[in-house]
């Protein structure tokens, strides 16, 4: 995907860029509003990642501009503002997601993947990887055409792993993704362990390779290259 990242904190934008480039995206970064305006007007991107508070302007205006140009691109807001009004306003003017800082890069990546599916495979929304076949909209997953019966959380977990293949995902990152405000991170580690154990068991039982590896003390990794 071709992504435009608009974030004034260079340290943060460089991390995001590094992560996204590793994922195979083309990522352009700008730290200024004016620069971003120019880029949005001249080029086309699959996705805009926009920080709201820019030193020389408001990120929301960039979203309005992109919408005015009738771009198909997905929009993710990253903001330090946690209030609901900001979130609602952002989503109202057409953003797909609103992430509050600090966020996990894996989370951002998962959102990018879902935007990617929406843009490039509009309608026939599905994920295929080796023996795994997932229909995200229908909440169904198959291994070698045999259906996996997963609980809601297990399914979300599988999707999250598929979006972040070959990445070490921290337990906190998983907890945040699965439960958000519903669980305080540390409380949820036991549940994550149980969910992952069950997911692995269910997948391998119908013939999947054991992809999910434990990174001791840190988290998990969906490893495709052995």
């Amino acid at each position, binding site marked *: 995907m071709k992504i435009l990242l608009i974030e004034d*904190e260079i*340290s*943060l934008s460089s*991390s*995001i860029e*590094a*992560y996204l480039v*590793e994922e195979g995206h083309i990522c352009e970064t700008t730290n200024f509003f004016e620069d971003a305006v120019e880029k949005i007007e001249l080029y086309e991107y699959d996705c805009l990642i926009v920080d709201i508070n820019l030193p020389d302007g408001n990120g929301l205006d960039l979203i309005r501009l992109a919408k005015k140009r009738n771009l198909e691109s997905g929009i993710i807001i*990253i903001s*330090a*503002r*946690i*209030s*609901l009004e900001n979130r609602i306003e952002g989503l109202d003017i057409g953003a797909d997601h609103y992430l*509050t*800082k*600090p*966020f*996990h*890069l*894996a989370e951002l990546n998962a959102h990018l993947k879902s935007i990617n599916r929406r843009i490039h495979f509009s309608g026939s929304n599905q994920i295929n990887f080796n023996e795994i076949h997932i229909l995200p909209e229908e909440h169904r997953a198959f291994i070698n055409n045999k259906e996996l019966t997963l*609980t*809601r*959380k297990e399914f979300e977990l599988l999707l999250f792993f598929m979006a972040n293949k070959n*990445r*070490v995902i*921290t337990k*906190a*990152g998983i907890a*945040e993704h699965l*439960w958000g*405000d*519903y*669980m*305080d*991170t*540390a*409380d949820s580690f036991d*549940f994550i362990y*149980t969910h992952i154990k069950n997911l692995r068991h269910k997948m391998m039982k119908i013939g999947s390779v054991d992809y999910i590896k434990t*990174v*001791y*003390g*840190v*988290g998990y990794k969906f490893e495709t290259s052995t």
Partner: protein
Amino acid sequence: MKLSTKTSLNFLSVALFTFLFGIIAFYYTLRYQVDKYINLELNKSKIALLEQTAKLNKFPSTTYGNCQLMTYKTIEFSKENTNFYKDTLILDKKVNRYKPYRLMTFSTTINNQAYEIQMLRTLEETDGLIINIFLFMTLLFILLIVILLIVNQYSSNQIWKDFYLSLDKINKFDLNIHKDIKLTTTDIKEFEDLNIVLRRMTKRIASDYSKMKEYTENASHEIQTPLAIINSKLELLLQCKELPEKQYQIIADASEASDRLARLNKTLILLTRIENRQFPEEKTIFPQQIIEKHLNNYEEIILSKGIKLSTTFEPEVNIQINPHLADILFLNLIKNAIRHNIPNGELKIKLNSTVFEIANSGAPLDIDSKLLFDRFFKSTKSSQSLGLGLSIVKKITELFNIKINYNYTENLHVVKLFFPK
């Protein structure tokens, strides 16, 4: 003690003291004056008696005006020229009662014979007069004190009215609701000075407070960005191939700590925003829907902990509240009841139009339950918790006049919310 009571008491004690001494002094002065007058009368009678005796050469009849001759006896010469007075009681045989008299004893010489003569003057009327005057004066004095007390009380009430008005205003003053304090102007200089000082002070406090709130919120938001940088860098670091296991552990610990800091910060922002009343919108919401949504999200956890859930909902219960805060309110209470539950414990939820009740099994609190809703209160057992969940609950309930109450009965922690009528 109220100031007016205090001044009244002071006044009363001084008045009583003065009254007691005054009345005693008054009595003796009166007595002295009356005695002097009676002595004078007795002396006049004495002269008349001596004149008549000289004329008649014998003791005349016994009565001289109000005075009467009592006794006379012959004495030695040596005792001549005595002349003294005393009060005495003499039995009145007609009514068989002692009556007061003033007795004058003097000596004189008649026909070379020395006599000691005693003369009497009745004190019945004068004593009666003294008592009447005395009683009248006492009554007058008491009346005066009572009237003064009443007047004092009334006038101090009038004077202090403005003061109490101001006091009431200060008492009800809430920095979160009011911008400035509205004190009524008064014509008493001291109170007006006080009001001026109060107005100036509250204005300054309000401005400091709003600056502080602004600062807290801005600071908290500013913290989010560096935290995002730390988190993202750590996450990138984790992606490095072939990191030694030891270093993974270090990064994981750092990442966990920064995650926790981020959560803490977000929660503090929320608390500040609630305190700043940045959730003004109120709607009719149905708690049952929210509660069921939350319970649905916790379904797996409830199941895996083996918690026995029971819910009783009275249909169509609704309350006026900010929808977002309502969501947080019930979420925090349910989260709390699940987190602190024991394996195979109970979770009971009851809702009717006046009360929401949530109860969960668990060991009794190891810290004073009064501190339960305080910030950063945590049980010693759960070091990972932020200790802010219930304090948010408390803030929200305060905002919407919902009364909250906690108790521990039959191994159940019970939190009740009483909705305003």
